[in-house]
């Protein structure tokens, strides 16, 4: 039996290795994949190296440069694994690559390669997300499964399928050239934003893991900015996520019910995140080619700048939405623009814009109409629109909110 002292030492060692896993896994794996050119082999070898660390460090103490130790050990483990493979298979190329020393420090460009490979548009969005979290961020299969509320075997199979596709289809392990970069970067940014949204959305799941998803998405965006300093959209995305995340603690009451932006206690917004987000928006917009994320971040920054909902600069927001529609035409963005116009120029104007839209099967359009009708004291029409929205809504928190509003306007119909 362990004495309490021994137990805490080994627990500390274990915790240190787990922290190291989160911090370095993706970076070491990225370099290893470049050398062995085989996703699965690199992963297995790195797992072996972490297992060796877990066996040796608690007793012997961690080496002076743990990341370099892991990289070297993983290379040796990869050589072992290749040796153990069937003799018929000639693996000379891999062996040569593995024994040629090219520095054991993980290279930043490798992380970028790995992100672009994991976010390749030839993979499904679900596969891109799972693979990015698993390989770039070092999440375990169990953690990702818990975050997305899917059974562990399903998630494990999704990862295996994605890695098989990378290998068989010849998805390159490279930073895309200038001609491909805009499209590929947009795919990577989209994946990062999906990770963030999954973490931010109020629906179910393990709260801690969900906060982790937001933090990882923010960390990935920081990494992209570092690696691609001339691109403005990674900055825009980081700003958007920081500004959104700044409202995390103000957006729901103690029972988990949604609090609308206009009703939130703005003193609970995270000033530090807002300041960083606003500064980033400034930089992204100054480049003169603000894109999809930069403009959304600018909208969030205008909200963040208002001391109260009444002081919101709605004409500015309406103008930014008009810009956003031009960048990426979508009825959902038109809907947001209509609401901003309603706030800036009057609800009738907003209603007229909403009436031109079609979003079949989507609850947000009748919900927006209902809200403007309510503000115009047209309670009977508002009630009808709330009922329509309720017949389409999915998320529980939103349903409760709409039911509450319907009860309110029904009372006032008399």
């Amino acid at each position, binding site marked *: 039996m362990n004495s309490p002292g021994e137990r805490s030492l080994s627990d500390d060692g274990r915790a240190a290795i787990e922290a190291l896993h989160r911090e370095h896994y993706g970076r070491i794996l990225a370099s290893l994949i470049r050398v062995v050119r085989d996703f699965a082999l690199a992963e297995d070898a790195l797992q072996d190296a972490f297992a060796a660390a877990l066996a040796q460090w608690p007793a012997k103490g961690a080496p002076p440069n743990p990341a370099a130790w892991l990289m070297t050990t993983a290379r040796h483990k990869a050589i072992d694994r290749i040796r153990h493979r069937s003799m018929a298979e000639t693996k000379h190329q891999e062996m040569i690559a593995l024994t040629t020393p090219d520095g054991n420090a993980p290279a930043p460009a490798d992380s970028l390669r790995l992100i672009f490979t994991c976010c*390749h548009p*030839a993979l499904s969005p679900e596969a891109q997300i799972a693979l990015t979290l698993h390989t770039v961020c070092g999440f375990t299969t169990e953690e990702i499964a818990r975050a997305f509320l899917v059974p562990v075997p399903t998630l494990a199979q999704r990862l295996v399928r994605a890695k098989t596709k990378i290998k068989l*289809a*010849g*998805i*390159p392990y490279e930073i895309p050239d200038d001609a*491909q970069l805009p499209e590929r970067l947009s795919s990577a940014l989209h994946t990062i934003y999906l990770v963030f949204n999954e973490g931010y959305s109020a629906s179910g799941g393990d709260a801690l893991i969900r906060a982790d998803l937001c933090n990882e998405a923010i960390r990935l965006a920081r990494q992209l900015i570092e690696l691609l300093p001339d691109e403005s959209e990674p900055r825009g995305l980081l700003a958007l996520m920081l500004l959104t995340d700044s409202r995390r603690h103000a957006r729901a009451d103690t029972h988990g019910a949604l609090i609308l932006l206009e009703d939130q206690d703005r003193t609970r917004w995270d000033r530090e995140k807002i300041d960083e987000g606003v500064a980033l928006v400034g930089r992204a917009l100054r480049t003169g080619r603000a894109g999809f994320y930069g403009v959304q971040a600018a909208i969030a920054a205008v909200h963040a700048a208002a001391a109260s909902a009444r002081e919101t600069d709605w004409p500015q927001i309406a103008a930014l939405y008009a810009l956003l529609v031009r960048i990426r035409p979508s009825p959902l963005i038109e809907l947001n623009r209509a609401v901003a116009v309603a706030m800036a120029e009057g609800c009738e104007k907003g209603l007229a814009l909403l009436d031109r839209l079609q979003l079949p099967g989507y609850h947000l359009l009748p919900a927006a109409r209902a809200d403007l009708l309510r503000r115009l004291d047209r309670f009977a029409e508002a009630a009808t629109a709330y009922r329509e929205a309720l017949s389409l809504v999915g998320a529980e928190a939103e349903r409760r909110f709409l039911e509450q509003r319907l009860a309110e306007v029904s009372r006032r119909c008399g």
Partner: protein
Amino acid sequence: MNYLLLIYWDEKLWADLPLPERNRIHQACGAWHDELVKSGHSCGATGLQPAAAATTLRGAGGHAITDGPFAETKETLGGFETLACRDLDEALAIARRFPGLKDGCAVELRPTVAGGACVD
């Protein structure tokens, strides 16, 4: 990496096109192919007769012979191009330049089995 680029058409759509329009598409696709031969990316290509001319074999010895293509779908295989590329990105770039895409066809990229030996 070698890829098979499969070209799918809606045959009804094709049948309804006027003759000069069909020949224009043939010519554009031919030019696309010629360029791939010049650049060394093409390992051969062919267009196919309509799916109605297909014969499908099933079962041991292929005794279950059916008239028609493997699956009855609106879009059928209209032709293929075999490509030798560095990786999927290069194959995608070539596939994107396929002129038939403008006229409503779809293409599918399938990596081929290396060395022609199918062993799992």
